[in-house]
């Protein structure tokens, strides 16, 4: 029994100007799909703004019609969303103007080799806005109109090919169009077919001979499978109720603000988290806020830790009670925030010209006792020993849980020993 072939087109009157090549392309595509026995429900036609977008109402398939130049990206989204549904064909239309806007989208689709066919209707001009040239207008055409003839067009076929498209080709002859279309539709992965024509309103009148104007036909293939999008199983980021319960006590009643100031790579952010977590172990509410330059690998690194018996809503720290400062970068960053309320724990290397009016300054040679990476931890732990905000055991438990505990615990021991 012969299979009943589904009609792909709605039968609506074609909206194209008389003689426009777009109509030829639509009819040939519909025939190729029908001949291949493809169901309407298995086809998604993606289009955007411009004459190429006029195809939208012509297809009696699934359709989606978006923004000028963006159909390759929109189509990629659809293709990725349907990648696990077998048998679906995403066919995206774009014009030469749209392809100029969305050039990166085309290259991205090629690079990812998504399962989608892009049909580029290149009629040399922006047909809806007055016949302006696009980035794909050929040099020969521009010579005729005497405009930007020294600027070559993008060869989008070659660009797609070197970006990884499974198949990329240009066809100029209507006679061969069906063959190219069949190849583009049947090939899995990203396929691009540039179909050259001349806008009858703005290009054809000015031209002696169509084939003298367009770029030569070409076709390339990359032997690579399409990128597959597959759902993966993931674990929750946390289980509600997980965390530490209070197993120590703390004398802190009123809010305490601690400022840790050092340099990138010195573990300041980690030490901030250790202190805030140790605070939880000691039954307090805590916050930890990091500050560092956009260039995360250089310059200052500052962490603010708040310890409080009450709930903490506002997380700002205007005047810290304690500042632990271990590097020059850190000192320069927090200099303006130190006040007569602040007690400063300072690395010996910074003592010489430290003249800020703070509550108290305690100096120790933290940097001489451990490596630069451990200096902040040593200074913070020693501060904790002196200030007694939290028992050192709380900090020890946090460090012991860390994958680098073998590095950290000896630093804590040094803090215990240090007078």
């Amino acid at each position, binding site marked *: 029994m012969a299979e009943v072939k589904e009609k792909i087109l709605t039968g609506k009157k074609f909206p194209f100007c008389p003689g426009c090549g777009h109509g030829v392309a639509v009819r040939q595509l519909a025939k190729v799909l029908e001949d291949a026995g493809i169901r*309407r*429900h298995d086809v*998604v036609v993606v289009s955007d703004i411009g004459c190429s977008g006029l195809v*939208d*109402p012509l297809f*009696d398939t*699934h*359709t*989606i*019609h*978006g*923004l000028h130049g*963006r159909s390759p*990206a*929109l189509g*990629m*989204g*659809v293709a*990725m*969303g*349907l990648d696990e*549904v077998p048998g*679906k064909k995403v066919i995206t239309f774009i014009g030469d103007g749209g392809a100029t806007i969305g050039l*990166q989208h085309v290259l*991205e689709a090629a690079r990812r080799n998504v399962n989608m066919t892009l049909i580029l209707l290149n009629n040399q001009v922006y047909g809806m806005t007055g016949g302006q040239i696009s980035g794909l207008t050929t040099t020969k055409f521009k010579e005729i109109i005497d405009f930007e003839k020294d600027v070559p067009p993008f060869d989008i076929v070659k660009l797609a090919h070197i970006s990884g498209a499974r198949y990329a080709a240009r066809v100029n002859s209507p006679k061969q169009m069906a063959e190219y279309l069949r190849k583009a539709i049947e090939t899995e992965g990203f396929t691009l077919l540039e179909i050259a024509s001349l806008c009858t309103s703005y290009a054809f009148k000015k031209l002696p001979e169509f084939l003298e104007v367009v770029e030569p036909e070409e076709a390339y293939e990359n032997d690579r499978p399409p990128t597959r*999008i597959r*759902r*993966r*199983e*993931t*674990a*929750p*980021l*946390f*289980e*509600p*109720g*997980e*965390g*530490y*319960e209070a197993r120590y006590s703390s004398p802190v009643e009123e809010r305490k603000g601690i400022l840790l100031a050092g340099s990138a790579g010195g573990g300041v952010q980690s030490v901030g*988290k250790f202190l*805030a*977590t140790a*605070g*939880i172990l000691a039954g*307090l*509410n*805590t*916050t*930890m*806020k*990091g*500050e560092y330059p*956009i260039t995360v690998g250089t310059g200052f690194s500052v962490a603010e830790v708040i310890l409080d018996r009450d709930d*903490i*809503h*506002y*997380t*700002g720290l205007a005047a810290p009670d304690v500042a632990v400062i271990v590097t020059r970068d850190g000192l320069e960053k927090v200099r303006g925030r130190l006040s007569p309320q602040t007690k400063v724990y300072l690395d010996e290397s910074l003592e010489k010209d430290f003249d800020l009016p703070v509550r108290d300054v305690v100096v120790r040679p933290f940097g001489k006792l451990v490596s630069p990476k451990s200096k902040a931890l040593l200074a913070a732990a020693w501060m904790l020993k002196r200030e007694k905000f939290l028992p050192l055991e709380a900090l020890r438990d946090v460090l012991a849980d860390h994958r680098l505990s073998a590095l950290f615990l000896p630093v804590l021991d040094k803090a215990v020993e240090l007078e």
Partner: protein
Amino acid sequence: MKTTRKTLIDGSKLATEAMARAGADVFVGYPITPSNLMYAYARRRMPYFLAAPDEITTLQWMAGLAAAGKMPVTSSAFPGIALMTEGINMAYAMELPMVIMITQRLGPSTGSATTGAQGDLLFLKGIISGGYPVPVLSPSSFEDMWSLAAKAVETARRLRTPVFLLTSKEMVMTQKSFDTSKLPEITPWKPARRVREPFRPYEPVEALTPAHIFLGDDEYLTRITASTHDADGMIRKAEPEALANTRRLRDKILHNLPDYLEYEWIRGEEKAPVLIVTWGVTAEAARDAVKMLEKAGRPADLLVVKTLLPVAEEIREIIDSYTKLVFAEENLTGQYKEILFGEQTPAHVFAVTGIGEMITPRAIAEAVEKTYHHG
């Protein structure tokens, strides 16, 4: 006795987990400070994760994925949101569900990427050409980061619309000790397949919202478009049926507002003579300010608005029931105040505003104290 356990956590983690539990399944992202934590968490948590080459592509992929049946989310800051804007308009007109988390930072332009702000509200008020409203939910606490993130996903799906989750640097990056056992359970909202025969892609079936038939459906052919269109999804110029569909976009967001209206109205036993109105990160400072004022014998009530847009009548009624108002928000002019009262601030309305650092509880308390001496 149940022991309390606390963990050091940030709002990005809470929001990402909540969105995943609410049914978001794909994160499409382009990195930008200060939204990168969500990018990192989503990389671990979302069943699909796509690294887009820019923010324009991000929105296009999200739209395509949503049209094909996925529930996409992203996170960005103003420079990225600006690039997404044409795509957001497209998704709004196409009626595609998605959640866009905005981590506000100091502008204009590149501004200061690691400094918080609340400066993007007015932009969102007018983001859709023609002045059509988009739901804007703004978490005011870690609890909200959880519940509003889930609400945003649910609202996006129910109403087939982009929804904004308007946060700021402090809400997404600062870590707090937090008891996650208090978080309410999240049940994902699953769209029922309600189709009226004959199927018309943009004919509303419930809550002024059309059935969401995905591209590639084996039973119904769907037609999705951003251009002015009729119920069949056929592009029309300004014809009555098409314009009715366009008007419905606004009606849909307004009509369903009770389903996603969130706010907190904190009052003492007696109504205070002044109401603090705030949102987002500044709500945390306002909560402290209310305590300070109580101690000082100058009570103030507090309204934390969480569904900022569209503005609910219920919110206006609460605000209108006070003779003195103090708005607190971290931007230059008081953007929420401007949305309610315009650029000419009435005499009974005061504002605590600022840029470059968080509004402090003291600044809010002082502004309230002043109203006690004023008139």
